[in-house]
């Protein structure tokens, strides 16, 4: 699988599991979980520096930007304007031009505001950023985002942090048939089989956070996710058998006793 690289905007990704860094007990646990997951891409948010408590440790002291690909996000932004501002600041911090664009439309569901996302993406692409947008599992939206220059699309599997898994595998399939850019399932997966399913469908990668950070044993779940992605990817490449209603014997009839 080492030659099975994912390439987005000319950037090579060695892992098809991308992980967030939120909700962990502490940075030590974050680091352990990320190591166990085998993920190479790590999402981070952009927040005000704590001026008062400067002694506080920084996430990047644990997650080495030389070892991992840091993917800043615009998490928590509810307007295109805020998301643009946040993404531009992230780019200015100087680590990467990649940004996971999310513009949230509603506090309760955390569903994306697709219209605002498209608007923000247009501006950010013009500014030279590599925009990976978090969107609904909507093929039309995916098409519009690709048309303006997004090199990948990140449709949700289910609401952020819900753990509901792949709620609409058919939409994901249609998205993959509609646009010819990598599809990264982002948000809503709950466990390793969800991740495997996404990969079996042919998605190019999965981004998750809560499913690992919220598990009883995050480190163990991180490892499970690693294998979920690998199993799903291999199964996709291998090509599954078609589903049939009736049985097909797998042993020969010849040579049976009494025949």
């Amino acid at each position, binding site marked *: 699988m080492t030659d099975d690289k994912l390439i987005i905007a000319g950037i090579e990704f060695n892992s098809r599991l991308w992980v967030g860094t939120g909700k962990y007990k502490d940075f030590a646990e974050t680091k352990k979980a990320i190591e166990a997951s085998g993920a190479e891409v790590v999402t981070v948010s952009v927040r005000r520096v704590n001026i008062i408590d*400067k002694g506080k440790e920084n996430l990047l002291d644990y997650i080495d930007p030389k070892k991992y690909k840091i993917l800043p996000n615009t*998490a928590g932004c509810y307007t295109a304007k805020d998301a643009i501002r946040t993404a531009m600041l992230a780019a200015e911090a100087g680590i990467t031009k990649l940004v996971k664009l999310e513009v949230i439309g509603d506090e309760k569901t955390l569903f994306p505001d697709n219209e605002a996302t498209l608007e923000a993406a247009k501006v950010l692409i013009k500014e030279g950023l590599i925009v990976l947008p978090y969107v609904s599992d909507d093929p039309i939206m995916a098409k519009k985002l690709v048309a303006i220059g997004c090199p990948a699309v990140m449709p949700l599997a289910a609401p952020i942090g819900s753990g509901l898994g792949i709620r609409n595998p058919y939409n994901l399939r249609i998205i993959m048939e509609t646009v010819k850019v990598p599809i990264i399932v982002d948000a809503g997966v709950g466990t390793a089989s969800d991740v495997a399913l996404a990969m079996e469908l042919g998605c190019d990668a999965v981004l998750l956070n*809560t499913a690992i950070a919220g598990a009883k044993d995050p480190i163990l779940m991180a490892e499970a996710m690693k294998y979920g992605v690998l199993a799903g990817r291999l199964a996709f490449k291998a090509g599954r058998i078609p589903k049939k209603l009736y049985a097909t014997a797998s042993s020969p009839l010849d040579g049976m006793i009494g025949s």
Partner: protein
Amino acid sequence: MIITLNGEKKQTPDNITVLGLLEFLNVQHQRVAVELNMEIVKKDVYGSTPVKEGDSLEVVSFMAGGCGAIGTIENWKLKNKDGLYYDGRQTDHCWH
């Protein structure tokens, strides 16, 4: 002089640049991004950009995060005490 820093009033030395301010604050400027009165300040002009009385600055960096915004970890755990916290025994997934 008084400036607004990350939304709060802050006393700083007079006649200071962005670079000087970051040094005064003891902030590692390699990993931050700065906005001065809503405009991003490029790193190469930190040393030549003056900060004036009443200016509003935002100094941001990368923090832990996945999707959506959450409060503190404590808030998140509280929110999830009422059944939302993932528990292997309660799961009813596998509808696919």
